[in-house]
């Protein structure tokens, strides 16, 4: 079975699950929407973290910026944003159906655009940092942006913004947002898969393996790094815009820039599934989300402690992840050829 037909089968399976799941059990629609969001986050994180070796702890910045951009656009279309946020939700703006939909589409577009522009602006600076400095710098960036937004009165500061209410019947909203997340996640994965198959994919892998050598070989490393980050940012921004509309209320620290939840989930999920593999982040995200949804409520407040423990266990004892482990175990299945002699001497060197 070639890798291509296997990929197509997995896509078919995921699309089937995505369509049949909410039809069979309508009550889990919003949980499944979050699952596709998680898949998208893990896949976009893996683009820089796994394939390019730039482990960002601050990709959540794009999510939050997209969310705020869409909020400002959607409300700004029909009302003065300053007055709206100053009233702390006291002003109820009635959106007509057409206004709502134009706002939503423009808002999602604006979310993606703002996040991409932000990545293009800060990218050349942040991506000049290497290794742990990049990770700490991006974490700092995420916290800084979150704190700046929570001090900015125009967008409501720490008290947040109420988003426009979905105009249709109760219950249809969650289906609409589900479809959006589902389509966005699948499209995102297809785009990223296509990108990996081009020279671009080879270039970012070269950057991961040895950045200085890649640069010496004539690869414009900064350009490639910024491009990769901007692609992640584009999808994260759109996802943020949709998530803001789905949750109905946005606020900087818990919803828009949750560094300690989604911000770290995406890293944990990509690592769980196996970073730097095409399907690892997807598998990791789905598994993580299922485990989280099933056990979360049973743990009575200890879930965050458990999360910390899971991350430590994952990192310390099982770093290669599920697919990474499988790839080491059965390399032939992944189309990886292993030179037995080389791998034996390689192991001898590693053992030394």
């Amino acid at each position, binding site marked *: 079975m070639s890798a291509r037909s296997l990929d197509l089968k997995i896509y078919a399976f995921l699309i089937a699950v995505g369509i049949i799941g909410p039809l069979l059990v309508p009550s889990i629609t919003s949980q499944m929407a979050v699952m596709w969001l998680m898949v998208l986050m893990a896949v976009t994180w893996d683009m820089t973290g796994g394939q390019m070796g730039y482990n960002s702890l601050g990709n959540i910045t794009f999510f939050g910026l997209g969310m705020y951009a869409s909020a400002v656009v959607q409300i700004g279309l029909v009302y003065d944003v300053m007055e709206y946020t100053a009233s702390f939700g006291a002003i109820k703006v009635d959106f007509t159906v057409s206004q709502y939909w134009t706002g939503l589409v423009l808002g999602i577009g604006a979310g993606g655009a703002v996040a991409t522009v932000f990545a293009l602006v800060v990218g050349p*600076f942040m991506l000049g940092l290497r290794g*742990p400095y990049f990770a700490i710098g991006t*974490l*700092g960036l995420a916290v800084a942006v979150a*704190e700046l937004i929570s001090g900015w009165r125009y967008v409501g500061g720490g008290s947040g913004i109420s988003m426009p209410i979905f105009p249709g019947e109760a219950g249809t909203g969650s289906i609409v947002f589900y479809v959006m997340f589902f389509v966005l996640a699948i499209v995102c994965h297809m785009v990223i898969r296509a990108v990996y198959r081009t020279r671009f994919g080879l270039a970012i892998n070269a950057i991961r393996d040895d950045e200085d050598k890649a640069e010496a070989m004539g690869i414009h490393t900064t350009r490639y790094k910024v491009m990769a980050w901007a692609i992640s940012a584009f999808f994260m921004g759109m996802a943020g815009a949709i998530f803001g509309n789905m949750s109905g209320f946005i606020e900087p620290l818990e919803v828009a820039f949750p560094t300690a939840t989604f911000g770290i989930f995406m890293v944990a999920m990509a690592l769980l599934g196996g970073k730097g593999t095409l399907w690892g982040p997807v598998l990791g995200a789905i598994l993580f989300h299922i485990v989280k949804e099933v056990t979360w409520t049973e743990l009575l407040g200890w879930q965050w402690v458990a999360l*910390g423990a899971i*991350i*430590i266990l994952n990192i310390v*004892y099982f770093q290669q992840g599920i697919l990474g482990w499988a790839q080491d175990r059965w390399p032939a299945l992944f189309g990886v050829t292993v030179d037995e002699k080389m791998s034996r001497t390689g192991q001898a060197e590693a053992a030394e």
Partner: protein
Amino acid sequence: MLDNISILFQAPIFAVDLLIQGLLIGGIFVLAAYGLALVWGVMNVKNLAQGELVILGGYLAYQATLWGIHPIVALPVAFVLMFCFGWVIYLVIIKRVVDRDMFTSLLATFGLSLLIQQSLNLVFGPEVRIAEAGFGTLILGDLAIPVIRIVSLGLAAVLAVGIILFMRNSRMGQAIRATAQDPRAARVLGINTDRVYAFTYALNAAICGSAGVLVAMIWNIQPYYGLVHSIRSFIIVTAAGLGNLPGVIIAGFGLGVWENYAGFVFGAEFAIAAVVALLVGVLMVRLFQLYRVRQVVR
């Protein structure tokens, strides 16, 4: 914002007050940053749980005051307890990430920080706490300085001098410095580097815990305040460079002063943003220095 700056010029005594308060707080930042520089330099582990160790020490002091023990008395107890805690953490987690790539240690300690932070939240709740130490306020002309801040700066200084003397003179201190220079050579010469690493991490935890006791006495603690303390330590170490003790001290006091002025000029809601933005700023400056080095090579 401009109004606030003009206040500083119109009432210079106020500016002096901010300066002194900043310096008094900066002493604590120096302690935590020194611990980070130690762990980073000796075992190449970027400890993102630094701030959580500080907060954990603070909660030990808070618990002591609940039992009617004065926090200053709790300081040595916290030092010993945190030392043991650090040793256990080393055996369970850090030992396995020491010789792995850099991101591993960063993420593992991030997981550890989540673990500590959330456990504290469950045990003590999310309220902001203070370990009440008593003491009055010292009035010097127009300046009012809480005595406890001066006492804590003195304690921080005593602790720092003690650690520096320990690193200079004791057998273990020499072993730590030897391991930092070349772990392999140290091993060849019969130093048990594993033990040195364990001791270093435990010492770091103890230093952070003591700093936390001081934080709880002169400021406030809350389970989620750890991250900002970690970021402060990273700013100081990045700005000063590893193994540059005078640099760490100057950067620590500088950060304390910057934080106080920034909190006043931009308003309290931007105080944390000012600290974190400074981190990004320091990293950028470092980046441009590297660019300059690369141009020389070219």
